[in-house]
């Protein structure tokens, strides 16, 4: 197998916790983060449940110590909080001591502010500062400034697979020697835009989401941010860094089937998993756990399930979707699930696929529904998005 790129730090804020430790405690104690929506006024508040971070924007501003005239979107604030944690966790004190970059991702960017002030801009010049926070790249600028990163900074936006692609690019930048160190991940805040978008597609569940269940009704949207610190072997050696895990494999493919629906047999998903396994130099028997995309929409779970069967045959590894805990956090999903994959490797534990009752009629796949302890060497994590974007990451133990 190929060792891959070292992960030396991670940070996260999600509906189930404001730190890596809080997220782990929630995942191992069935503490879910799905609730009714508090921070956004929407006519759908009684008919949807969300994975919301129960902190107001004012609380986030205070936590980051931002000046009153700041123009951070919620997306940027969540990202800055998680990225700061990751850098601290990696024991980095001088960010520019090594060639360091930031590859972030977002789908909504500053849409939360745009939708709030859309018409008001013409009446109130004090909010004009938010016009420039709309772009996806603005959140990354702000995270880069918060961390003091001045070199390579970019943002990927491939809908719900975005953060997987950010991690993938980061790993490739390290492998190519373009960077010694890179902060990778994603951030997305809840917004009326996405709530109404998924609502019109009729794939929002009015109750807790139930991945891989025959009666699944759709997804719960969520918000989150998570970042990993990736470092070159040389930095790890020189600094005597503790390696949390490795990014050993990655693959991206396009389903080329439909703008929003996945192909019946999960062609793109299958290709992404196949490429990732090849990069990692692993065989199907080596994967101990799949952290599935598992959004609980009828289309995703069927397509992903079929792709898993194509890849692994009748002996699919233990798999679960952690979205019943967090909701589907869109561009950030693959980043928070990367943190969960590392936690799985570190603690030799598989997190349960909650809310599962009835097996799907189309196949015999059964998700792991309770917390399971077993030695875990390699975790495969899937993320798929609009536009047929399919991404797979493989994380491997650090010994």
């Amino acid at each position, binding site marked *: 197998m190929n060792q891959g790129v070292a992960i030396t730090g991670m940070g996260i804020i999600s509906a189930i916790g404001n730190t890596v430790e809080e997220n782990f405690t929630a995942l191992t104690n069935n503490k879910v983060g799905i609730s009714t929506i508090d921070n956004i006024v929407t006519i759908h508040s009684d008919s949807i449940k969300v994975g919301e971070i129960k902190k107001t924007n004012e609380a986030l501003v205070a936590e980051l110590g931002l000046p009153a005239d700041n123009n951070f979107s919620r997306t940027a604030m969540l990202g800055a909080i998680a990225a700061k944690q990751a850098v601290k966790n990696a024991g980095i004190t001088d960010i520019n001591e090594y060639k360091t970059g930031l590859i972030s991702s977002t789908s909504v960017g500053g849409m939360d502010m745009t939708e709030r002030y859309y018409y008001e801009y013409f009446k109130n010049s004090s909010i004009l500062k938010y016009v420039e926070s709309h772009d996806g*790249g603005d959140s990354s600028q702000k995270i880069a400034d918060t961390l003091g990163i*001045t070199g390579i900074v970019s943002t990927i936006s*491939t809908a719900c697979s975005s953060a997987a692609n950010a991690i993938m690019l980061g790993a490739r930048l390290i492998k190519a020697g373009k960077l010694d160190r890179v902060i990778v991940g994603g951030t997305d805040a809840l917004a009326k*835009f996405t709530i109404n978008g998924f609502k*019109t597609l009729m794939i929002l569940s009015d109750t807790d989401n139930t991945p891989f269940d025959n009666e699944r009704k759709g997804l719960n949207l969520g918000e989150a941010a998570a970042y990993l610190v990736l470092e070159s072997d040389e930095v790890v050696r020189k600094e005597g860094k503790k390696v949390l895990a490795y990014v050993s494999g990655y693959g*991206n493919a*396009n389903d*080329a089937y439909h703008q929003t629906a996945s192909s019946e047999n999960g062609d793109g998903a299958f290709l992404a998993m196949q490429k990732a396994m090849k990069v990692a130099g692993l065989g199907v028997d080596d994967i101990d756990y799949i952290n599935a995309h598992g959004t609980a929409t009828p289309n995703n779970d069927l397509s992903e399930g079929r792709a898993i069967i194509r890849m692994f045959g009748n002996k699919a590894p233990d798999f679960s979707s952690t979205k019943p805990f967090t909701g589907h956090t869109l561009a950030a999903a693959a980043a928070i699930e990367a943190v969960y994959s590392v936690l799985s490797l570190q603690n030799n534990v598989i997190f349960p696929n909650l809310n599962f009752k009835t097996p799907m009629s189309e196949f015999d796949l059964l998700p792991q529904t309770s917390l399971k302890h077993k030695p875990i060497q390699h975790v495969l994590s899937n993320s798929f998005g609009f*536009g047929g*974007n399919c991404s797979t990451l493989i994380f491997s133990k650090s010994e």
Partner: protein
Amino acid sequence: MSKCYINGTGCISAQRTFDTVFLEAAEVNNQENVLTIKDPVYKNYISPGAIRRMGKGVKAGIVASSQAMQEAGLENVDAIITGTGMGCMEDSEKFLKAIIDNNESFLTPTSFIQSTHNTVGAQIALGLKCTGYNFTYVQNAVSFESSLLDASLQFASDEIENVLVGGIDETVEYTMSLFKLAGYIKTESEKPYQIFPAKSKGVVYGEGATFFLLENKITSSTYAELAGVEIINKLPIEEAEQKLNQFLAENNCRISDLDAVVLGYNGDIDDEIYFKNLAENCLKNITQLYYKHLSGAYHTASAFGLWIGAKIIHTQEIPAIVRANAIAKDQYNTILLYNHHKGRDHSFTLLKRCQSTT
């Protein structure tokens, strides 16, 4: 460790560039502060039903990418990488307006579905049935250069043999009105608008879709070698020259080797300082060119700049309309591009003529 060559281009811009040799039909429009694209004949490339559904950027992206592939004589690609600063604004705005105006009721999903930033890359993949690598970058003025960087990494590691790389941005009315309100766009009273030298703050905005077919080999359609690309988030003005020299050195080149520089002058008097700092000092003896007076300024306008650089190496001609100084050379073998926006998202891109195509 393969090199990377531009073997096909397609350019939809505010100028007639889709059915021309180069800029022979270009005209400076100094009467409008938002320049919109000259539409190609979409029905030659896209079915009429699809034309009605698709946003401007998606349509233009499909045509520009088809042209790039056609020039290179390829029918499919290993990867599709796009950059867009603002994404699919038409559909985003349509959906957002509907949410607000109708209080979250009576919504249809079409515009939401087409609003994601990766729609252009996705629609190209769908049209080609291309299941390869498909990424979209959204980093303001380096959205397109991020795509070039990604592509060059994959050539260096021999992961791909060819790739479509493009920069796409579209203007949309309400957002333009917000940009005018916020002072990003020059005011009507300044007409006729002047981009270089700049006289005021703000830009003449624009839109476009520019695609490149990059391959790992020189062919009969090769324009130039994409010899290097670098993105820098924050670059203090006093460090720019040193950073430029470092970039050139990493690509086995010096300022004295440059035959021309393509600068991203955008009409904004503050942004201009960064360009002038290099143009009036270390680059003062080099042929200097600019292009945003033709394309308008937008996050991926630098892709239009690269198209100009590639065309110059290919034709060995510099159209007078893009000249920022009078220095001329006998040959244009090495061209540097430099761009930034508001002092952030700086990029250096280096093109070299390929000996076997001379």
